[in-house]
């Protein structure tokens, strides 16, 4: 409908019109918006710093005394900061759209860029890029912390815990997967925030989705239910990507788990995109 309206405008030169609605311009506009306020930069920095800090703290808290078998997945342990990092990524993603609603900016954005799906796609693309960058720093920092701390706490190569290295296939998969995990969390949050518009409600729903599944799975005694909850929960399933040991006992294979999260994110974006098209801003 919006295309039909703008196409009827006689005064607008065709070339200019095409340029205005094109995705590169939308991307440029979203990039400018995120770049010129200080919030996103701070949140991205906080994502990296807090993820590394929590990972290092968790790693430092675990020791393997000599003479005891330690059933510890050191890769997963050194990436545990992602559980906090995802919350900050969620704030960033929620604010990317709900910030526009709270200030009324969304009306200007949609006037300048009437193709609403392009606006959402541009926001998603910029957000993904930024989170991938911050997530890479966070994950590499966490692994480096693990590599430095673990050997001093009894997790030595001699006892079957090789130094964490990206040259190791499963470790590389866990690291790359964790970065993708953060990006998918951003997309999930963006989709939900587009659908509900209010930042407080959106962040509540996102954190509820992430944190409630593991808690409920923890108290359900029925093994079938327990397994299903672990398979469909976006956080449980998505974080399967961090596992490097005991893969056979996982409720889902690592990549399938990340796929579940991707499905959640796609569903949320779709719902958000549809509502954005259908509703008045």
């Amino acid at each position, binding site marked *: 409908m919006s295309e039909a309206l703008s196409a009827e405008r006689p005064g607008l030169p065709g070339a200019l019109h095409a340029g205005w609605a094109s995705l590169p311009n939308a991307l440029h506009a979203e990039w400018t918006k995120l770049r010129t306020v200080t919030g996103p930069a701070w949140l991205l920095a906080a994502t990296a710093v807090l993820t590394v800090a929590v990972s290092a703290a968790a790693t430092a808290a675990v020791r393997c005394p000599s003479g*005891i078998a330690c059933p510890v997945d050191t890769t997963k342990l050194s990436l545990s900061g992602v559980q*906090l990092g995802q919350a900050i990524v969620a704030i960033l993603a929620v604010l990317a759209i709900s910030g526009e609603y709270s200030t009324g900016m969304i009306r200007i954005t949609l006037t300048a860029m009437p193709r609403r799906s392009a606006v959402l796609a541009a926001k998603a693309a910029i957000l993904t890029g930024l989170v991938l960058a911050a997530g890479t720093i966070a994950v590499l920092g966490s692994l480096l912390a693990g590599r430095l701390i673990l050997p001093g706490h009894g997790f030595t190569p001699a006892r079957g815990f090789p130094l964490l290295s990206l040259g190791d296939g499963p470790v590389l998969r866990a690291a790359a997967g964790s970065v993708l995990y953060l990006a998918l969390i951003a997309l999930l949050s963006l989709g939900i925030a587009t659908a509900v518009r209010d930042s407080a409600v959106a962040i*509540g729903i996102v954190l509820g989705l992430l944190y409630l599944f593991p808690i409920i799975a923890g108290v359900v005694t029925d093994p079938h239910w327990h397994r299903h909850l672990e398979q469909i929960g976006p956080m449980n399933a998505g974080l399967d990507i961090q596992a490097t040991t005991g893969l056979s006992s996982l409720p889902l294979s690592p990549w399938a788990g990340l796929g579940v999260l991707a499905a959640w994110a796609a569903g949320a974006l779709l719902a958000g995109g549809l509502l954005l098209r259908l509703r008045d801003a």
Partner: protein
Amino acid sequence: MSTGTITPYRPEARAGRDGFAQVLRAEWTKFRTVRGWVIGMVVAVLVMLGLGLLTAGGSTSSCQQAGGGPVRTGAACGPTFTVGPGGGPVDDSFYFVRQPLTGNGSITVQVTSLTGLLPPANPNIQAGPNGPTDTRPGLMPWAKAGLIIKDGTRPGSAYAAMMVTADHGVRMQDNFTHDTAGQPGAVSAASPRWLRLTRSGDTITGYDSADGTNWTQVGAVHLAGLSSTVQAGLFAASPDYTVVSQNFGGGTNGSSGPSQATAVFDHVSRSGTWPGGTWTGDYIGAGGASGIGGYHQASGRFTVTGSGDIAPVVAGHGNEGDPATTLTDYLVGTFAGLIAVIVVATMFITAEYRRGLIRTTLAASPRRGRVLAAKAIVIGSVTFVAGLVAATAGVIFGAQLSHHKGTYVFPASWATELRIIAGAAALLAVAAVLALALGTVMRRSAAAVTVVIVAIVLPYILAVASVLPVSVSDWLLRITPAAAFAIQQAAPQYPQVTALYSPGSGYFPLAPWAGLAVLCGWAALALGLAVVLLRRRDA
């Protein structure tokens, strides 16, 4: 400037408008007239109730009779526990060398040795058909042997016992849940222990002594309604071999078969009326199935061997009472309710900043501390009432659902039930005040909501997820706001039973009210900071 010129500008109505009751009323009006917030509170109640019932209804026990037959589900086959005098599930299984005792009387004995056998260290080696062949010498820490006076031979009946234990010295225990320490130290031929039990009416008194001459009273217990003729004598028991590892993965509890304890008794002497005349040795409870046990009597010396335990069943995941639920499980929805409440409570202040209403509010009531106090009271009370409704309904309906589904529910005293229900409501209310305070400090909804949810929920998830060692998990649940979930612990921790008492299995490091106090401390701190900032900053 005299005060006379100022007074006319302060009309009498001013005092009334500035009163705290008016501020309170204004805040209440704001809350109840914003539809989204009221809906948010209703949603909090519904998700809290719904998730709890989903959990209670999600587990259906199913079973099949030993001889085959149709698989039955639901109420037809809950776990069958022996029930003790206190109403809770118990283990009551031991080897008993006994005689009837009529009326008052006493029995005294000297214990000179306590030894035992453990099942193979490698759990994959099963005991052979002719009894456990790969056993090794050793004692479970709570292997026990001594004197017992029991109200008949029915498992679960009332009792009082004086015993020596492997690692915990002399103990007096009664009715499964009570445990009193006597002399410390292990028993041996060089350092024997003398034990005595005396019955006088419904009261049984236990004594211990190192030499049989100088006696110390360990305890006196009252067993209500004790029959006039009771069974009294010697016993031995040793709980199933369990290794509780509290190092990794949130703790694990591996059990691999029965262990046994053998005690040597000397100088058995009795007073009172013992009409039986001869000793009978047999198993109480299910322990006889292991094929371990027996007694041998020669020249006044008794050697008694037994397996099993006389103790309460411990609730929690990974423990013996695992298939059963506790009241806490009905309130797992508290986490979902918490998130909804935090969102509403944060918006209660951040919405004023976003809309600019805060300037009107502060113009109408310039004493800013009072405004915040009124907001805290309104949001705290509303949340408390909502939480009370949800928790009460959750516990009532959850119990019915569990009964219907055949899930065993650990009984809890009415005081515990009340504490858990009121505690859930208080937890939500204090969390709401914390969210309000942080919303005032940060003035941004998204950041404030995230900080509060992450501070309360994430430490709990990290503590119960199998990532951190138990010691670290315990510290997380002592100092972070997540400590408040201790208020929801339903099952008590029994020091006389070796089991997995970790956050993951429902046991918290702090006492219930102490845990809630930690959250209150955080809320008070945040509220203090919020008042200071609200006064100093321009709105």
